[in-house]
Every structure is written in C-alpha cells, then in structure tokens.
C-alpha cells in the first residue's frame, strides 16, 4: 500500500476519537443518571 502511514494515521485518529467520544458520552450519561430521579428519565427501559 502506498502512503500507508497517512492512511493508517487518518483511520486510527478517526477511530480513537469516535470511540473515545462515544465512551465519554455514555459514561457521562451513566454518572448523571444516578443523580437524577428515575421518573425524569423518560427513555429508561430495562
């Protein structure tokens, strides 16, 4: 593969940023959910 360093770097950065941001949002949601009454979480399902 030509320009492999650039291709891998671009895909790697994208993957790390997207996975990291998704994990951050989910974790923040979990932390806040514990501090807000369950009736406020209309989307909650088992």
């Amino acid at each position, binding site marked *: *593969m*030509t*320009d*492999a360093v*650039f*291709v891998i*770097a*671009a*895909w790697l*950065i*994208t993957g790390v*940023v*997207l996975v990291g*941001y*998704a994990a951050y*949002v*989910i974790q*923040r*949601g*979990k932390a*806040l*959910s*514990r*501090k*807000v*009454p*369950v009736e*406020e*979480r209309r*989307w*909650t*399902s*088992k």
Partner: protein
Amino acid sequence: MTAIPPVDAPGAPAHTGSTATRYLGFVVAGGLALLVALGLFISPPSIEQGDATRIMYIHVPSATTMYYGFGLAGFASAMYLWKKTEFWDLLAGAAAEVGLVFCGLALATGSIWGKPTWGSYWQWDARLTSTLLLFVLFSGYLAVRALQMDTAVRAKRAAFVALFAMIDLPIVHYSVDWWRSLHQEPTLARRDPEIDGMLLFSLMTGMLVFALLFTWLLIHRFRVEFLARRHETKGLADAIATRRAEVHLDQSHRSPDVLDASTGAMETTP
C-alpha cells in the same frame, strides 16, 4: 455546594440508552465494520492518488456529518428564539458538540490527506481556513453554553452565537467555487460524479454509516444534556434550601430576631 446523593431507584438502569438506541448502535457497529473492510481492503486504489484515496472514505463523511451537526444546531437555535422551549436549546447544544467532533475529524483527516497529495499538511486555502473558523466559532458557542448564569439568558445568548456562526457554513461549502482553491471541487454534488464503481459505493457507505453514527451520538448526547440540566436545577434548588436553613439556624441562635422566610428581611421580636 454539598454533593447530591444518588437518587436512583434500586434496580433501575442508569444510562441514556433505550431499546431504539441499542438497535441503532448494533447497526452502526456493523456499518463501521463494513466501512473498514470496504475502505481499507476491498475498494481499489484510485488511478490519480493511489491508496491515499482511502482517506476520502472517512474525510468526506466527517465533513458532511459536520454539516448535519452545525446545520441542526443553527436550526434548533432559531427555533429556540422563536418557541423559547427547553427542547430546542438542548438539541442545539447536543448537535453543536457532535458536529464539532466531526468538524475536528474533517480538519485532521483532511490535513493528513493533504501531505501526500499537496505536499503539505496545511495551506491557508479558502476551504481549510473557513472550516477552521467554523471550528473556532462553534467552540466559542460551546464555551458560552458552559457559562454559569440564568439558563434562559444563557440559552438566548448561545442561540445568537450559533446563528452568527452559521454564516460561515455556506461559506465553507461554496468556498471552492467562489475562490481559487487547492481543495478539489465537489465530487458528488454534480451531474457527472467524478468517481464511480466500488469507490463511489464505499464513499456512499461511509456517508450513510456516519449519518447513522451521528444520529446515535446525538440521541445519547441530547439525553446527557437533558440530565445535566435537571441535575443543575436540582443542585441549585438544594443549595438554596440548605443556605436558607443555615441562615435561619444561625439567626435563631444569635438573637431572638426572626428571619422572614418570604422576604428575607429581619424582624426583631418585641
């Protein structure tokens, strides 16, 4: 401010997920796996740029998703100024943050793609510069949203900042037409697309998967924003109640003076 204890009911799930987001999450995960296979292994290198074209499958979807995010933030901000409802303010904040992530990715992947094709990571070209300006403007928008002040005042100010930032969105899009630019002109938004076959299929797959990923992130981020607002309101109410109780207790210990709870004024008992 005192820490707010957990109020979760025993056994109740504490997260921002729902059945719909769970299904959507599985679809997005499968789509991303397909995109990796198409973009890195199945799709052939292009004649002009070789394997560097593989960056296009993440760069172009990142840029189009950035448009969705900022476009939605601008629309929701305008709706907030009209309707003045919390929903539009929260949606604007969530869409702007997710849009900013994809804007950052578009800038980063575009910069990396620029090195093998232009020989430079960065050029002060119209498309690149206007996109960087958009990133800065929406970073400022999120900074305004983080200010500690009355939520209605903050929401109104943030909405105006978003609408101001929106001026740059069409400039980013049309910059390659309006000015001489190193950046290539639109590849797909024309009658005779410059790419076809597996390259076009991979690119369209990337755009679809990123749009679904944006939707999934937006739903979760919106719910986080909603919970943060509830937590902020509850924390403020608790702090006010605690402070009132402290003042009342302090005054009753020091003198027979009585604090009028309704007005906050002191009254001396005879």
